[in-house]
């Protein structure tokens, strides 16, 4: 039997959605390779988490009661022991910031080939993993010619598992070497506050690296004004310090769900899309017809923003600034 061990993720007392997606991905994979799906739950209120994770398709749940929050030194020690306890061959973790903070180390310790950020899995004697490359412009497939491997799965690609399960929950006593705990989480901080809340906006004019220079921002500011819309952006604009953090849409910024999202000069990287795919209508203005944003957009203009935006401003009775 080829068994799968998937590792749940939680933060500040809550299981994260990706944990339930892992159950779906892990169940499919386990069935394809002909094995059981085990779940590992480490730290926090493990009993409550296990209860919640006990969904249809899970064969066994192993809990490790050690500490409250994620600490990669605990995870890196506990997972190999769970892997052995479960008799697992395949390790599945979220491709989240924390998943990527332990999966490479665990894969290395267990000598498992690692494929990160998979968007599709096709299990078999040789498992095929699909992932994206070059900023989502192409997909690639990899054959994993090994019964045993580790894979991290992209959040929001698999549906969440539902339905009650009847997995047996076992508390596992793992050996944690305190000397090998070389980092200490001292707290959390919320960033991106302030007077503007882009997640409340009905219409967002959102600008990306296509704007090129800080001086050019007046163009989209003017457009937002003319439309009575709110201005938001992709990450590089905030990284450059051109707009404050509270304007950033995406995985590490805000999740927005406006009626209309106008993405201007934004390629549509996965971490950006994580923040805006729930918008009712998405409009893209981008010179590159193969930009991934067009996979998502309802409407598009494949043209230069420096030609389109001034026209739009004038359509709404504004005056396009001279750049």
């Amino acid at each position: 039997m080829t068994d799968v061990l998937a590792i749940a993720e939680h933060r500040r007392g809550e299981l994260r959605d990706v944990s339930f997606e892992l159950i779906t991905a892990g169940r499919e994979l386990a069935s394809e390779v002909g094995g059981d799906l085990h779940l590992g739950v480490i730290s926090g209120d493990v009993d409550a988490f296990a209860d919640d994770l006990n969904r249809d398709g899970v064969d066994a749940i192993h809990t490790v009661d050690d500490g409250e929050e994620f600490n990669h030194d605990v995870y890196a020690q506990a997972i190999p022991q769970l892997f052995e306890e479960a008799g697992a061959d395949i390790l599945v973790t979220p491709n989240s910031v924390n998943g990527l903070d332990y999966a490479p180390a665990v894969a290395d310790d267990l000598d498992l080939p690692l494929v990160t950020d998979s968007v599709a899995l096709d299990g078999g004697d040789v498992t095929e993993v699909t992932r994206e490359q070059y900023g989502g412009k192409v997909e690639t497939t990899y054959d994993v010619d090994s019964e045993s491997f580790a894979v991290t799965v992209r959040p929001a690609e698999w549906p969440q598992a539902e339905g009650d399960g009847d997995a047996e929950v076992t508390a596992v006593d793992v050996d944690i070497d305190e000397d090998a705990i070389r980092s200490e989480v001292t707290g959390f901080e919320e960033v991106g506050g302030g007077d503007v809340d882009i997640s409340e906006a009905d219409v967002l004019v959102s600008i990306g690296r296509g704007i090129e220079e800080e001086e050019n921002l007046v163009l989209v500011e003017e457009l937002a004004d003319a439309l009575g819309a709110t201005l938001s952006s992709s990450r590089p604009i905030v990284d450059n310090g051109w707009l404050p953090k509270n304007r950033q849409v995406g995985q590490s910024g805000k999740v927005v769900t406006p009626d209309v999202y106008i993405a201007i000069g934004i390629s549509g990287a996965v971490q950006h899309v994580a923040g805006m795919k729930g918008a009712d209508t998405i409009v893209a203005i981008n010179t590159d017809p193969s930009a991934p944003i067009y996979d998502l957009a309802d409407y598009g203009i494949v043209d230069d923003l420096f030609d389109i935006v001034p026209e739009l401003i004038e359509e709404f009775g504004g005056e396009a600034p001279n750049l």
Partner: protein
Amino acid sequence: MKILVTVKEVAEVEDEFEISGLDIDESYLEYDLNEWDDYAVEEAVQYSEENDDVEVVTVTIGPERSEETIRMALAKGADRAIRVWDDSLEGVDFLSTEATSEMLAAVAEEEDPDIVFSGVQSDDDANGATGVMLANKLDMEWAAVVNTLDLDLDEGVAGVHRELEGGIEELTDVRTPAVLTIQSGINEPRYASLRGIRQAQQKPLDVQSLDDLGLDTGSLDSPLERTSMYEPESEGDATIWEGSPEDTAGELADFLRDKGVVEG
């Protein structure tokens, strides 16, 4: 004190491109220093400017072509560079994270740095795993996705913010030596000055083969094999407005008015 920075020359794809075999055809690729590594280099150089006797060494894996990119890191203030390359790496489809971190680990063992900075991910492959695997191979501590760093190498601690999802940062104290994967936005990477570019030509750039590093090609073998690359079928069914900017902007304006989201 010594800071080792892992850097990669990444391929950027032109708007229109073709795939030949298992990769994008060379003629549609342009090369540049990986965005995240640019921030990592800057973080190291700033520390070396603020503290006495800190050497910044960069290490890359890449063919001769990548020297141009590596020189950019030298021009921005790194002191010397190491480039790992080998005939046996010529023409391989891709390097697994295991292989990459194995080579970087061999260099790091040689260099014995006090801290290692790498980028969170590379722009082209986006594995996002090299730094953490490297740390494990070196038996160093690590932290992934660091967007604020308060480093005290004398004390042996790095106070970091790890940028999690949803605007939450985790505050963590990390014991050094460690590998930190550096997130974009942590600093403001400088442009190389003309003087810097001139000086970079004089700085040491050492080329190391697998043999030099005590590795054999077998140690880089991976059970992973890339089997295809293709343009994903567009899942969307976007309506693309066509015509002059005046026409297309007009279409969008009409749409917005019809939708009733704007007045006027």
